[in-house]
């Protein structure tokens, strides 16, 4: 059975890049451009710096994958971009979204996260790492950071989608 160590950084980057491109093009008709990709950061006990750098109110979608490889992926978006995405996917105006409350936007971001993580893990499954998705969840707020446990590796990918920013935070359980 292949191990996670055999997956190169290039494969991780290409796989997440393809997943983001595919989902944003298909569901939103938008082109995502990968700007920066962090090197893998191994947990060595030193504290994490807050790497996401999205200003203001954020909506963060997360979906996990469990199986021969396990991990979590977070999608960080600004509230404005999250509202824009929900409006497009559901054909709703901004006033309709406001009237509907957070629940509608949360659900849309959750589904977009589900699709992105699904596309990512399906490619890894076809490379010999079968795993299953978990149910999405959403965090909202500002000026917060999400820290992994020490046994995880972390990769950060920053995309621009038109004038908006999307940050992908990929946390994976190490192969021990």
């Amino acid at each position, binding site marked *: 059975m292949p191990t996670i160590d055999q997956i190169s950084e290039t494969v991780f980057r290409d796989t997440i890049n393809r997943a983001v491109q*595919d*989902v944003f093009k*298909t*569901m939103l008709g938008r082109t995502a451009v990968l700007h920066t990709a962090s090197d893998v950061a191994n947990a060595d006990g030193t504290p994490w710096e807050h790497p996401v750098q999205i200003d203001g109110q954020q909506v963060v979608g997360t979906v996990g994958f469990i199986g021969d490889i396990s991990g979590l992926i977070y999608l960080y978006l600004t509230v404005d971009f999250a509202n824009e995405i*929900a409006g497009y*996917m*559901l*054909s709703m105006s901004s006033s309709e979204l406001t009237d509907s409350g957070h629940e*509608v936007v949360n*659900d*849309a971001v*959750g*589904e977009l996260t*589900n*699709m992105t*993580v*699904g*596309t990512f*893990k*399906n490619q890894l*499954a*076809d490379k010999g790492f*079968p795993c*299953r*998705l*978990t*149910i*999405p969840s959403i965090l909202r707020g500002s000026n917060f950071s999400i820290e992994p446990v020490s046994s995880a590796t972390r990769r950060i990918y920053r995309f621009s989608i038109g004038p908006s920013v999307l940050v992908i935070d990929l946390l994976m359980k190490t192969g021990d």
Partner: protein
Amino acid sequence: MRYKILTVDDSKTVRIIVKKAFKSFDCEIIEASNGVEGLAAASKEKPDLILLDITMPVMDGVEMLTKIKASHELKSIPVIMLTAEGGRDNVLKIAKIGVRDYIVKPFKEEVLVEKCGRVISLKPLTDGPIKTKSVFDPAIILVVEDKPAIITQIQDGLKHTPWKVHGVHNPADAIEFCNRTPPDAIIISLTLPEEASIPLFRQIRQNVKSKYTPIFGLVIKTDLALQQQGQQVGFSHILTKPIDNAELEARIAKAMNLDTSQRYFMVDGDVFVMRLPAVTNAPVISEMLGYLKSKVAEAVDSGIVKAVIDLHELKGITPEIIKLLIQAMATCKDLALQFTLVGNSQIISECKSSEDTRNWQFHDSLADAKASFAKGSPITPQPAGAA
């Protein structure tokens, strides 16, 4: 029959997208947010198709699918998986339980509709059950013909209609056009290069948007074998070259189920007018007879008591036209509608020379006829050729 589609997904967003995708089709969308709700909805509603997610709380899609297949009552309902859970092994494992198709998210609405359209016969929603399109409404006619002269000929032949005739020269452009702007009728040359006509016909028929669009074959009059082949394949009608423009227009109007009555019957102020066109041939007479009683009744019902039978455009009288006129007069009489005739010198002269029509008297114009009602002295001929 209105189809029912059950969408089982814990994401409200996906359920809304599914609803949106099918909003222009005659089907009902039923929603459930997990496998337990999905099974209950399937038992109650007996849907014609189930769209099923996998990762859901309470009961996931694989468990629900297994229960459906174990149920005598539900196992025949086709299931299409709509899920972010892809991967070859996963898909194969679920396909073995028994699914009609497998759509991996993200998905385009068109792909969803197209795949569902292969399982159930989706019909586009009409504008409404009562409103019928008229010959005076705009329509889009697509002509697929590699010979530009024929396209021009059809465009010229139909330029007096409100229809827009678009010509394309090959199947790829035709498919692209159909996807972008679904036409109201399509004419395909049966002699496209590389025998592409019939595969193109089939491809257009497979697209849910153009599944019910009338498609005409176009072929030279003498090529009987190709005409027969086109009929067997299922073309709505085979048109022949040289093109008879009047026939072409009539065939298209009929195939599009257009209301042509306004060509012959109209209300002008407080007068009901039945107008015979210059060329009133057998198909026109048949069309007019089809509308006659209902149109006269409609006029009377709306409070009209005066009618003019207007022959001023007519170029000549035939026994069939006389029969039509006699029937029109009888219908007016039955419904107590005052009526009178308008004719040109040629028609008046021809009527004078025929036994059945020699006593018919005419006004010179519609204005004269209308004025005669005002004076209380319309010239009312006796129907059924009575002197």
